[in-house]
């Protein structure tokens, strides 16, 4: 089922694979019969023109959408569909195309929210702010502060995120996802609406997250320059169908991809 021109590139075992996945809304086919995999430690880009089914694909992976057909194998466990809670506990974190933050909360609280699943003390201790709960809170704060340093957002940690400029909101959102210590991080257009400088910063954070934390990343992006620079492998969707899969160079030369992006002469 390999697309034209898609040999194996990055080594490493498969972390997640989708096989023959289809999803339609009423009569509209958002994703049809798509298969690809994501290997441990790589940066995998999903690209395609508008309406290609990229975001639907991410939503299927983290359980927001349930595909009608196909199979998702994550960490060796195959299932017909993912549920959001399963995805989160299993180690899949994500960001959203239109930033989805907890607007009333500070940047710090937003990132702390990413630790939800890691907190285990019962609420009587939390009420008393004492004993195991206090210790736990301190530990979580420490790792959250690390992420805040990593993303260079120390000065805004106490600011309600609704007040932050867009670029910083995206950074906080990335922070919240990283706070989950995910094995697989899904980024839906992390650089949309950013200026060049912000894009460069964000690209660095993505690369560093991949390097330092060893996080496997799947990202959707429209900026081809960014995609080609960042990703190890690229899968190309068009009208819900996979048209190419391979290294950035291979994909760039692929005729089907060129046609999809530039249009075919009639």
């Amino acid at each position, binding site marked *: 089922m390999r697309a034209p021109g898609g040999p194996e590139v990055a080594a490493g075992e498969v972390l997640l694979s989708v096989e023959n996945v289809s999803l339609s809304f009423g009569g509209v086919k958002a994703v049809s019969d798509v298969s690809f995999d994501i290997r441990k430690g790589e940066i995998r880009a999903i690209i395609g023109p508008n309406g290609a089914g990229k975001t639907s694909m991410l939503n299927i992976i983290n359980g927001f959408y349930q595909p009608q057909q196909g199979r998702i194998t994550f960490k060796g466990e195959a299932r017909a569909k993912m549920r959001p809670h399963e995805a*989160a506990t299993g180690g899949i974190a994500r960001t959203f195309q239109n930033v989805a*933050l*907890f*607007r*009333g909360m500070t940047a710090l609280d937003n990132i702390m929210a990413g630790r939800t699943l890691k907190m285990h003390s019962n609420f009587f201790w*939390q009420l008393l702010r004492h004993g195991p709960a206090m210790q736990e809170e301190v530990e979580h704060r420490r790792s959250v502060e690390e992420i805040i340093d990593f993303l260079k957002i120390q000065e805004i940690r106490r600011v309600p995120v609704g007040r932050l400029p867009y670029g910083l909101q995206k950074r906080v959102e990335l922070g919240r996802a990283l706070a989950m210590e995910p094995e697989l991080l899904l980024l839906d257009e992390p650089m949309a609406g950013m200026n060049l400088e912000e894009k460069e910063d964000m690209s660095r954070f993505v690369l560093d997250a991949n390097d330092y934390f060893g996080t496997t990343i799947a990202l959707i992006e429209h900026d081809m320059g960014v995609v080609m620079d960042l990703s190890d492998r690229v899968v190309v969707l068009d009208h819900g169908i996979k048209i190419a899969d391979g290294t950035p160079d291979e994909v760039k030369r692929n005729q089907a991809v060129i046609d999809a992006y530039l249009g075919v002469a009639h």
Partner: protein
Amino acid sequence: MELLYQIFVDPFVQMATAPDLFVQTLWEGLVGGMLYALIALGFVLIFKASGVFNFAQGIMVVFAALTLVGLYDAGLPAFLALGLTIVVMFLLAFTVERAVLRPLVNQPDIILFMATFGITYFLIGFGEFVFGGDPKVMVTDGLFLPKGAITYKALGGIVQLQKLDIVAAVTATIMVAALGIFFSKTRIGRALRAVADSHSAALSVGISLEQIWVIVWFAAGLVALVTGIFWGARSDVSFALEVIALKALPVLILGGFTSIPGAIVGGLIIGIGEKLGEFYWGPLVGGGTDAWFAYVIALVFLLFRPQGLFGETIIERV
């Protein structure tokens, strides 16, 4: 001149010359205010967790009180009936989550708001079907709710405090404090605020919407039960109680829809303002002010602080 005197001077003269009556009025306002605060609290809990004004809160008060009385009248001991009513409120929360909220995840708030109308009418019908439509008497002796009043000779007259009112005020205070701490200091509290802000983001960090919603509706159900017991004991248990619950609206406008302290302060201001207004200014317009005075207070506040006393400032980037 005469009218201005009657509005701006005479009431205060009366307050000063008959302090016992003034204190009595104040006390009654305070108790009424605590109970308004309790009702408002039920609304705040659900609003915080889902951004939805739960129209059904009023009928939940009636439904909880009816269940308690119904079980007691069926011959169960009072505290067993109370325990079972708590179980029923939990089942209600569970059912609402399963049957109403879960299918509506990620829908616009207005859809959920309309769904609470549906819950309201369902509970009215279901309540009447099971318990009948007649007013009932609240269980008081069985729950050790005191009767009678404590009378003080003070301030040159008599001040009478109903024992039931004292218990109501104390219970309401404890309940409000407990819930306030629970939702501000615990992980569940943080998760609750997260859910209120964004369903999808909350899901993506592994917060279980199902769990949060059941907890919140159950908490609102408990608040409804306590409210129902005290309102029911002061008057009787009937579907008319549902209208009292709408008094929570001015309280919420005053206090802010998202603030637990706001619900309390708002409740007290409305309760006291309403009683003072009725007693001192009511006669000027021929009485009957309690139906609308609270809304006037809220309206005046709205002009100056649209987000309420303690509401979160609305931040909108353009």
